[in-house]
């Protein structure tokens, strides 16, 4: 079979072909770039859905004794918001960027297993659809329940048949099982691609940090998703085959579910944040016009974070009541993870220091990330101290900390990544003014929401509370928090509008609009199917620098 050379991404050429034919191309594709874009688009839809669910939650809490939604709907909303954002928005977006960028950055023509890549994406996609089918299916056959309402970590015994009748919890379990298979497939693909598909000259020590960090992330996915999958299967056995794994009345252990979940859950935070580090590590040097500071240490710190990150899970369980030895171990391991994380922050700052900083939109998001991630780390250290955690566990302080990581660090760098690689993916420049408007709306909204969310937490407001009595000192803070959500929603709308408008009307980007140094900028925007007409050979970590500055190449000093 012979096909024409790639031109699918340019809207003018694409529009000339029938819609069905184009759709068929996308559905049957095994091209890593198309699959990356599919991941990203799919996740963006879920990001908007999860955002709407968060807005419903915040409108409900805007004032005391509010009844915007019923308590049942409120429970479903916070469960679906958490599950959607973690499993079907942020993780797939990150997989999408990994899929799109890794082969381009390591000088390969595709991922190691292109068909597995497509299979993994579609499993993830169908997993998400299965979760949302619960809105109609969960209620359907047995007349009880609706969407899942057990919270995103679904503690036992709430998930038992006694307390969760109908199929809502099963939809949650099965959708995560199905998408989990997809995640493991993608992780294996990333690991194999990075280890086996690098272009000549690209030793591990010359690999872009994005590839290194995604390799680490993929290793964590394999280690973290497996216990979650095992736990989901055990839960199914409990619910349908009369098992007692988590049934405390029959010798099972509810705490065992917590261990299983958080053995997945905490590394999952690093699965999400390590690719965010990767984006920052690519964007900050380019917009500071300096090479990354301390490359080997950045790699070592990432691996340290992943390693220590596997041994901190029970800091989510201090309030359960563990032994003194258990508490001490998990306090110390949690504190220890601050060291490699701190090293990374210092290295990003050192990269910026003395550079010729260009505050384009991607850099703005990364600078905000540095500041916000520092705060998130500090509140993480506070919550990592068991006595402090006993006071504030399961309060809005925890929610504020967690969202500082997920939104303040991960989503901010994701936005940075969108703006940075949008010209490569689409061949068009985004609108800089709209990008900056998005940034400022989102920064204001983020800080209104999540800075002030710490305070009701300290004042004792528990998470997942449907409503509250007036006069507890929570009213004003909740009002401000909800106002912030609307700023963020406005920012998100500007972002989506900018992408849509720029894709159609944006200025032609050229192959290398940022004067950058990694291999993806050496091919056309968007890249052809085969990425590179001839496989490149490199001699340093910044191959394009070497070509642009032959009088002063990096390879002489690495």
């Amino acid at each position: 079979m012979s096909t024409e050379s790639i031109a699918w991404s340019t809207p003018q050429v694409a529009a000339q072909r029938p819609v069905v034919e184009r759709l068929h191309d996308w559905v049957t594709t095994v091209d890593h770039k198309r699959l990356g874009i599919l991941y990203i688009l799919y996740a963006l839809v879920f990001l908007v859905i999860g955002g709407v669910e968060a807005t419903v939650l915040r409108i409900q809490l805007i004032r005391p004794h509010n009844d915007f939604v019923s308590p049942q709907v409120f429970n479903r909303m916070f469960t679906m918001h958490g599950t959607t954002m973690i499993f079907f928005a942020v993780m797939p977006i990150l997989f999408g960027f990994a899929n799109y960028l890794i082969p381009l950055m390591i000088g390969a023509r595709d991922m190691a297993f292109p068909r597995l890549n497509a299979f993994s994406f579609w499993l993830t996609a169908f997993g998400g659809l299965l979760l949302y089918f619960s809105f109609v299916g969960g209620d359907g056959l047995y007349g009880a329940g609706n969407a899942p309402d057990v919270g995103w970590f679904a503690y036992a015994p709430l998930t038992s048949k006694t307390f969760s009748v109908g199929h809502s919890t099963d939809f949650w379990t099965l959708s995560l099982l199905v998408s989990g298979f997809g995640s493991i497939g993608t992780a294996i693909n990333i690991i194999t691609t990075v280890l086996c598909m690098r272009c000549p000259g690209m030793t591990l020590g010359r690999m872009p940090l994005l590839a290194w960090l995604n390799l680490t992330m993929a290793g964590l996915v394999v280690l973290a998703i497996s216990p979650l999958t095992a736990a989901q299967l055990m839960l199914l056995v409990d619910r349908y085959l009369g098992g007692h794994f988590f049934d405390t009345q029959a010798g099972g252990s509810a705490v065992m579910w917590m261990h299983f979940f958080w053995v997945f859950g905490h590394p999952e935070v690093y699965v999400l944040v390590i690719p965010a580090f990767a984006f920052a590590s690519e964007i900050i040097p380019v917009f500071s016009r300096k090479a990354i500071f301390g490359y080997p240490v950045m790699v070592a710190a990432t691996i340290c974070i992943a390693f220590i990150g596997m041994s901190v899970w029970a800091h989510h369980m201090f309030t359960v009541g563990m032994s003194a030895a258990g508490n001490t171990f998990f306090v110390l391991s949690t504190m220890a993870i601050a060291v490699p994380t701190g090293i990374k922050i210092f290295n990003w700052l050192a990269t910026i220091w003395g550079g010729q900083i260009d505050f384009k939109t991607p850099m703005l998001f990364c600078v905000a990330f540095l500041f916000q991630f520092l705060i998130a780390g500090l509140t993480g250290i506070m919550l990592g101290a068991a006595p402090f955690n006993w006071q504030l566990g399961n309060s809005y302080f925890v929610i504020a900390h967690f969202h500082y990581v997920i939104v303040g660090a991960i989503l901010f760098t994701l936005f940075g990544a969108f703006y940075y690689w949008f010209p490569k993916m689409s061949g068009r420049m985004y609108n800089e003014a709209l990008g900056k408007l998005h940034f400022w709306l989102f920064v204001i909204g983020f800080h209104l929401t999540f800075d002030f969310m710490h305070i009701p937490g300290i004042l004792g407001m528990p998470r997942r509370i449907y409503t509250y009595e007036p006069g507890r000192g929570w009213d004003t803070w909740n009002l401000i928090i909800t106002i912030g959500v609307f700023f963020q929603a406005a920012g998100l709308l500007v972002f989506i509008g900018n992408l849509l408008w720029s894709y159609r009307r944006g200025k032609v980007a050229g192959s290398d609009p940022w004067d950058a140094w990694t291999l993806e900028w050496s091919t056309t925007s968007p890249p052809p199917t085969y990425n590179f007409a001839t496989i490149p050979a490199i001699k340093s970590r910044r191959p394009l620098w070497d070509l642009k500055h032959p009088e002063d190449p990096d390879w002489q000093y690495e």
Partner: protein
Amino acid sequence: MAVELTNQTGESATDTIEMPASTPWPIVLAFGIALLFAGLVTSETVSLLGAVVSVVGAVGWFRDVLPHEAHETVRVTRQVPAIMTTRHEVARIEIAPELRRAWLPVEIYPISAGIKGGLAGSVAMAVIAMLYGLLSQKSIWYPINLLAAGFFPAVASDTTAEIAAFHLRAFLIAVPIHLITSLLVGLLYGAMLPMLPRRPILLGGFIAPVVWSGLIYSILGIVNPVLNRRIDWLWFVASQVGFGIVAGLVVSRQGRIRTRQQMPLAFRAGLEVSGMLDEHRGEDERR
């Protein structure tokens, strides 16, 4: 100037490239598996359908890759972008002009400098603290017992006379705490002083101890309110500043040594990796 990143591997440029062929079977198999699981919460028929679709998908996939992986031929466009920059001049940070690539810091203090500084600072701090004990409680043991109270909170609620008296157990606790902390802070000074851009003694010896004391001042009332009531913050700051200035002066008087900038990481880590560097150089030259 424009440079093209092509043909560097020696691979001959061709008009076509073989790429993995598009295939519907991954989506078919994924859909089948999703139906298989969805049947558990809907109907056995759905699972049955899922099983059939999965088998069809798997068989189609196998036929795609066995005995040979299906490929499609993609025509290569001759549209290779030129690699160029608009920034031809390279600015250099004025830290080590003799080095074209500098790994910072260029010079460091040896570890012994930090140890010496820490020990000297510990003496200075102890002298100031005992002076405070003598002047306020007429006892050099008062600050020592207060330091031990960090480990034995009950000590802080003793009477002033009891705290001013000598206690062997408190002494044996306080001295190692003081020495170990001083050594660690001394080592930190040794590592950080080369990185402080200007007036290292002012920054490390005065401003840092004052900030540190402010932090302790703000949280000690929560962590240990009884101990907090017994601390004289003026003397506390004085002892911290005393440590900082003396440790800083001792460290800064030690000779600096240059880091081994051009040595590979494995060599600097003391690993036996003979030939590793040369092999890489050889590879690059061949290319």
